[in-house]
């Protein structure tokens, strides 16, 4: 279980995240929804260990992660724009996390094939990443994130740059995949429909604060203030 306890992240004078608290249970999918600039991505990066906390704690199963660097957290992170490794093939990209764990080559090969099949890209492992379409890149990034079987998957606007029809299809596929695997996931987006479709619960973020958490119907029915009501409208 992930616990975000009163976390603040500061960039100079700006509090990008301002006393945010949130809990995500095992197997639960939570979306962080808010307008651009509200600090959603920064919060996600802070959970990953990529931003320094000004104050507050991030815990996994009750253990404080303050001294655990990003590469030891065993969290998966899918970046906006995917951040695929340009000098590696599709297969090498996906194998990277497994190689870092020191798994043996035959096991890695089997796992890469398995994950590629999940995302519908069987046989793509020798392809170079710069020849992929946007949707294919997205799937490779997702496969790369899931391959090492992380204890938490974080997705930062994972469908951001794609066209509408493709987004809808990938949304369904991705949610289906994570549901079957029972993955604990955090999903950052500014799109209500994506949030509602993907997540069990939604955390609304505004100016660095988490202003309300709940299921979409609850939030719509009982918004804490006018701003949330307007935002969800």
């Amino acid at each position, binding site marked *: 279980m992930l616990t975000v306890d009163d976390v603040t992240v500061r960039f100079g004078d700006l509090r990008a995240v301002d006393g945010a608290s949130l809990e995500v249970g095992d197997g639960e999918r939570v979306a962080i929804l808010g307008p651009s600039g509200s600090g959603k991505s920064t919060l996600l990066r802070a959970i*990953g260990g*990529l*931003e*320094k906390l000004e104050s507050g704690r991030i815990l996994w199963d009750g253990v404080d992660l303050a001294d655990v*660097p*990003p*590469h*030891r*957290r*065993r*969290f*998966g*992170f899918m*970046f*906006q*724009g995917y*951040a*695929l*490794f*340009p*000098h590696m093939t599709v297969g090498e990209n996906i194998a*990277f*996390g497994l190689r*870092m*764990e020191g798994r043996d080559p035959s096991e890695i090969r089997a796992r890469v094939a398995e994950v590629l099949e999940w995302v519908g890209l069987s046989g793509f492992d020798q392809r170079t990443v710069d020849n992929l379409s946007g949707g294919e890149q997205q799937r490779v990034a997702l496969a*790369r*994130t899931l391959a*090492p079987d992380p204890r938490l998957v974080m997705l930062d606007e994972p469908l951001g740059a794609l066209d509408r029809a493709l987004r809808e299809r990938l949304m369904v596929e991705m949610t289906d995949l994570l549901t079957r695997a029972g993955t604990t996931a955090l999903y950052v987006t500014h799109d209500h429909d994506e949030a509602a479709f993907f997540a069990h619960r939604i955390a609304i973020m505004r100016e660095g604060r988490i202003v309300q958490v709940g299921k979409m119907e609850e939030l719509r029915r009982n918004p804490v203030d006018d701003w949330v009501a307007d935002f969800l409208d």
Partner: protein
Amino acid sequence: MTSRRAIWAAAALPLFFIGYFFLYPLGRILWLGISELQIADLLTETRIARVAWFTLWQATVSTVLTLVLAAPLTWAVSRFEFPGRRLAQALVIVPFVLPTVVVGTAFAALGWRDSVWAILAAHVFYNVAVVVRTVGGMWARLDRKVEEAAAMLGASPWRVFRTVTLPLLRPAIIAAASIVFLFTFTSFGTVLILGGFRYSTIEVEIYRQAVTLFDLPMAAALSIGQMIAVSALLIVYARRQERTASPLVLAPEASTRRHPEGRTAWAVAASVAATLAALFVPPAVLVVRAAADGGFRRLFVDEPVLGRPLDAVPTSFSFAFVATVVAVVVGICAAYVISRRGSRLSQWFDVVLMLPLGTSAVTIGFGFLIALDWPVDLRATVALVPLAHALVAVPFVVRATVPLMRSIHPSVREAAAMLGASPGRVFRYIDLPIVMRAALVGAGFAFVVSLGEFGATAFIARPNTVTIPVMIFRLLGRPGLGNFAAAMALATVLGAITAAAIMVMDRFRSTDLGTF
């Protein structure tokens, strides 16, 4: 966010390297020059005043001559399209990459030693490429419509050139002139070989005071003067660059070139042929005379004092190899730090690591000579020469690799970290493979720089560490036509090796590097 610890770990080696081999010797020079109060003597001694005046005079004249003599070729290759244009542009670079000792020996082979004209001619020969590249680069992109507009308004071709073209080219001309001035102001090898005892620049005088007369405080004082002069030049140049960087009427390069016709075609042909022929003569005479005088045979024969000239070749190659490895390791570590933007350390590094490039090689050699006896006496070891070469070469490696490292989006490294890669492994699996090819190009530069390095090596070479350029210089200083022939032959060998290395690198750069 890259962890601070990772950055400092990468910074440690370059910090030590630059600190101990560059900043510390510089400090010792300053201390030596100031503590012995020689600066005051500088101003009173007439020989020094003459040297300073000559340095300034020859740099100015060399610069003006280079600009004037390079103008026809620059005009031809940037304004016109003709068969062989690319070849002409490539050939003109060759003199620029030749080691100074080779150029000096080539002009000595013409029989021009001990004269001002030899020095000036060698400087022009060496720097024509700078003008063709810098001014030609801009001229080729100058929109012809601007000139045509002036012509339609009644300006004659000459007035168009004077009132439109020349003013528009001014920033490029000033940039080229500054670079040529800086090169000729700090010219060492050519002047030392061609100037005899009569003509001495500040660089040559530092060498003479330190090595021949053993007046170290005087040499230190001269070094300080030289550093001040060079820094002032660089600052003025940087200021100028800022001020004149105005948006221009630029067009795509290909669109401005015309096929020359009628009388213009003759002028273009004459410009190209005359310049290339002039540039061809010195190296050709060097090779022909080296062969005719039996120089190549002499390379295998023991000279009583210097030993077998050809023995300098393996020495140079092993030094170049070590210097390249050191420069690449230090350079890549430094590039890693510099490419992590935002940290103050990275900005500071960016400046400090380029300093050896703006410092004369003579100063570096002199600093090694007086400073590296502490804490252990490195001066007696063979490591000294390759270390000096590595210091000169590091900026080339940094320049080659930093742009690629900066091109790696931060999220790519973060993605690797989130997949379980420690900072060290991020460097190994992400940074290193991506910059590998650029690092190889940087390594090629380092190798060529080391092979041709003369200014620093002249100070610190010992009988068992004689490199090719030092051997050439010593052969030139020995009496007898046989030694002169051997010097010419060895210069031919060095020139050929350098040209071959540059060609290999150029091919490597244009084909393989373009894939990212």
